[in-house]
Every structure is written in structure tokens, then in C-alpha cells.
């Protein structure tokens, strides 16, 4: 369904939404035209999000129902520079922004600098075609304004960190503070005599086979399974943090895992998710990887069961020798 049809179909809903917001904040001077325009942009992004799967009418209806209309209304008013809206925003969010900035900038970056930068960005200093470009214009109302602000603050902090560290790129910065700091690899020692050289060749073969088999095994997982493993093992999110991420009934990750497990999914099941559930999902991923890893070593690399165990032993040995865990937690 094209956007125009979508919009005209939902226009009465947009207008009703606008009336409600206007009633709550009559002094914001937001016009129906501006509000419809913003919702229309949100809808366009929603439709363009997945080119392969067109949005159904039900999905679009759900989008409208979940839209944070009052937050969007406030953001539109702030973007246009309405003073009352800015006053309201300041009352409601300033201390929140400051708390987040303080929490994030524990080290060398001043929290007040971050707050100042965020405010400047939100107001907008760049002028395009004679109009000021406010960061608020990029808020779609899909998530809460608080959640959006947290992301804006985080990105500002990253940029600030980058400029204060001799223009270190975002990727380099990520590598320095995150999982990238752990570029642990199998360390290859210089071989001694002939026997040692043979052993070294064998070890190198096992190493390569292990990494290749893990590569294939990991590659066979679905994206949501990969992300779960990466969140847990690379980003070090705790079971509790992951549980809270998948707690909302509409959580896509939760729905994918439940769909695969044959339970009802995609419809906002309201049962609680516990840490044990997440652990079960992880265990299923481990099971899949383990199975594929072994079969890959067996069929593709032509290793015997004994050799497969040697591969695993070697990997374990090198793991403890070279303190990969220590590096990962740094």
C-alpha cells in the first residue's frame, strides 16, 4: 500500500491524535500540518524499513497505537523554537539529561559540557535553506523521548571523546573501550627442532580448522541468536540486563525465540521472561554451535573424533595460557 493511501486511511486517527495533544499542550503552537508531516515521515520510514516485506494495514495500525504522540508533539514544538515547549522540556527533562550525562561521563569528560552540547544540538545551530535544523526534527515518536535522549547523549559523549582524543575514529574508540581491546589470537611460537616443528604444523592445522569450523557454526545461526551470543559474550550484558531487554511482550528478540520454540509469538504475549529463559535460549545456541562445529570438523576438515577432541583441548589450553578472558574483561 503506498504512503498516500496509508496516510489518507489513517488521517482521521492522526487528527484525533493531534486534537488530544493540542488539548494537553495548547500553547505549543503546533499546526495539524506540521504534526501530520512528522507522522507521515515516521510512516515513510516504517514502510521503508524492510523493502522485502511490505507493511500490512494491521502493522501500520499498531504503529499508530504505539506512537508516543505527546512526546512527538513536544519535539515538534521544540524543533520550531516554541518557548513554552522549551520551558516544558526543560522542566521535564533537564535533570534527567544531567543525571545521564553525569553517569556516562565518569572519567575525563565534564558532565556539564555534555549537557551543554546536547542542548545546543537539540536547539540546532546549523542553518539549511534559511531554516535552523534542530535535532528534535529527527525524533519519530517510535520510542519514548527519554530513550531517544539517552541515545542522543550517548552519541554526543562519543563525539566528545573522539574530539578530545586527537580525532580518534568511532571505530578506533570502540576498539579501545570495548571488545576490540581483546584482539587475542592463538599465539604462534617459533619452532625448535624437527619434532617440535611437526607438532607446530599440526597445532597450526588444528587451530585453523577450529576457527573455520566455529566460523561456519556461528554463521548457521539466525541473526537474533547471533546477537544474543554477542550481547552476552562480547558486550558482557548480564542475564539480568538481557532479560529486561526482552521483558516487553512485543520484544522482537523474545518473539523470535518463542516462535522458533513453537510458542505463540509476535502478538505481545504477556507472560514474564526470567533469566532462566534467557539461559535456555543461550543453551540452545550453544547446542546448535557445538553440533555444527563437530560435524564441520568431521566432514569438512576430515578430522577423527580423537582429533576433534585435540582441537578443543588445544583451544582450551591456549585460552588459559593467553588470558583471553582477562583481555576481554579489560
Amino acid at each position: 500500500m503506498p504512503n498516500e493511501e496509508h496516510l489518507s486511511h489513517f488521517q482521521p486517527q492522526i487528527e484525533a491524535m493531534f486534537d488530544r495533544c493540542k488539548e494537553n499542550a495548547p500553547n505549543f503552537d503546533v499546526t495539524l500540518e506540521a504534526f501530520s508531516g512528522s507522522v507521515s515521515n515516521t510512516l515513510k520510514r516504517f514502510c521503508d524499513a524492510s523493502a522485502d516485506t511490505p507493511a500490512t494495514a494491521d502493522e501500520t495500525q499498531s504503529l499508530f497505537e504505539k506512537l508516543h504522540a505527546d512526546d512527538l508533539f513536544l519535539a515538534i514544538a521544540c524543533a520550531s523554537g516554541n518557548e513554552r515547549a522549551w520551558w516544558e522540556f526543560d522542566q521535564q527533562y533537564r535533570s534527567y539529561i544531567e543525571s545521564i550525562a553525569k553517569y556516562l561521563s565518569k572519567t575525563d569528560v565534564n558532565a556539564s559540557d555534555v549537557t551543554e552540547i546536547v542542548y545546543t544540538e537539540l536547539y540546532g545551530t546549523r542553518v539549511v535553506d534559511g531554516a535552523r535544523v534542530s535535532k528534535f526534527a529527527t525524533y519519530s515518536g517510535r520510542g519514548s523521548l527519554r530513550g531517544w535522549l539517552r541515545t542522543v547523549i550517548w552519541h554526543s559523549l562519543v563525539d566528545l571523546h573522539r574530539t578530545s582524543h586527537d580525532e580518534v575514529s568511532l571505530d578506533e574508540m570502540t576498539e579501545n573501550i570495548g571488545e576490540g581491546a581483546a584482539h587475542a589470537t592463538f599465539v604462534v611460537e617459533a619452532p625448535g627442532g624437527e619434532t617440535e616443528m611437526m607438532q607446530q604444523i599440526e597445532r597450526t592445522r588444528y587451530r585453523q580448522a577450529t576457527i573455520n569450523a566455529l566460523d561456519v557454526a556461528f554463521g548457521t545461526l539466525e541473526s537474533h541468536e547471533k546477537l544474543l551470543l554477542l550481547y552476552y559474550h562480547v558486550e558482557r550484558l548480564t542475564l539480568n540486563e538481557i532479560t529486561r531487554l526482552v521483558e516487553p511482550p512485543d520484544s522482537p528478540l523474545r518473539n523470535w525465540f518463542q516462535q522458533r520454540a513453537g510458542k505463540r509469538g509476535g502478538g505481545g504475549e504477556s507472560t514474564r521472561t526470567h533469566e532462566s529463559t534467557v539461559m535456555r535460549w543461550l543453551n540452545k545456541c550453544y547446542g546448535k554451535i557445538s553440533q555444527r562445529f563437530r560435524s564441520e570438523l568431521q566432514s569438512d576438515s576430515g578430522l577423527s573424533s580423537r582429533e576433534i577432541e585435540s582441537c578443543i583441548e588445544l583451544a582450551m589450553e591456549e585460552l588459559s595460557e593467553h588470558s583471553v578472558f582477562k583481555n576481554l574483561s579489560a
Partner: protein
Amino acid sequence: MGDNEQTIQDVETQRLLELYFASASEPRSRAADKTAKHIDADTLAAFVESSLSLRESEPVVAHLVDCGFCRKSSAELIRLQNEFSTEPVNDIVRQGESVTISEVVSGWLHKLLGTSDATVFAHEESEEEKEKSEKTDPGEKE
């Protein structure tokens, strides 16, 4: 396979994964970061709050698997969301603080909007309060 055997195998797989993530594949996926466009703040925030539909989340999740920067950002935002989820919403400015906060806010707005305090806070004071302040501080009128 018995429960114990399964547990041992899971632990073994976990350790192999640690090795895998720390060595061969990660640098490759990070290399993709440099060419890929990062997820915008609005989409990332909505994803972390589970506000995106399954249809919208699919490309986001695929990107997060490949892009270390966006994944790290999302993980930090998940932590942040958990950290601040129990904090009381400071929607109402407490009476005792109003003067100080108003002063600070007015400074900000003056900086941002180039407006005077009087313009910004004109609507803040009700008629009743205005009358009251005029009665208690007649000197101000002069």
C-alpha cells in the same frame, strides 16, 4: 546425552565462543563497520525499548551482528535504560528548588533562544501568585 555431559559440552562451547569472538571473526566484522552506515539514534533508541516491529527489527538486528560500534552503543543504552528505569520521573519541580532551577533554566534559554527571563517565564506565574507577590513586595513595583 546425559545432563552432565550436556553441561560440560555447553561450557566447552562457551569457551570456544570466547576464543572465536576474541580472534578470527571479530576483526572481519569490524572491518565491515567502516563502510556501513550506522543505525540512527531514533531507530537505536526504539530498538532498545522494544518499540520496533518484527519487520523493522530484522535489518536492525542483522546490522548489530555485523557492526561492533552500533552493537556496543546498543549494549550501553540497554545498561543505561536499566540503570535509570527505577529513577523517579522528575516531572514536577519542587517548590523549594523552583527559584534556582528557574534561574538556571532561564540562563540556558537565554543562551539558546536569546530571549529574556520575563518572556520565558511570563506564563509560569499565575495571576493569583502575581497578586500575592505584589502585595508582599510592594517595593518591586517602583
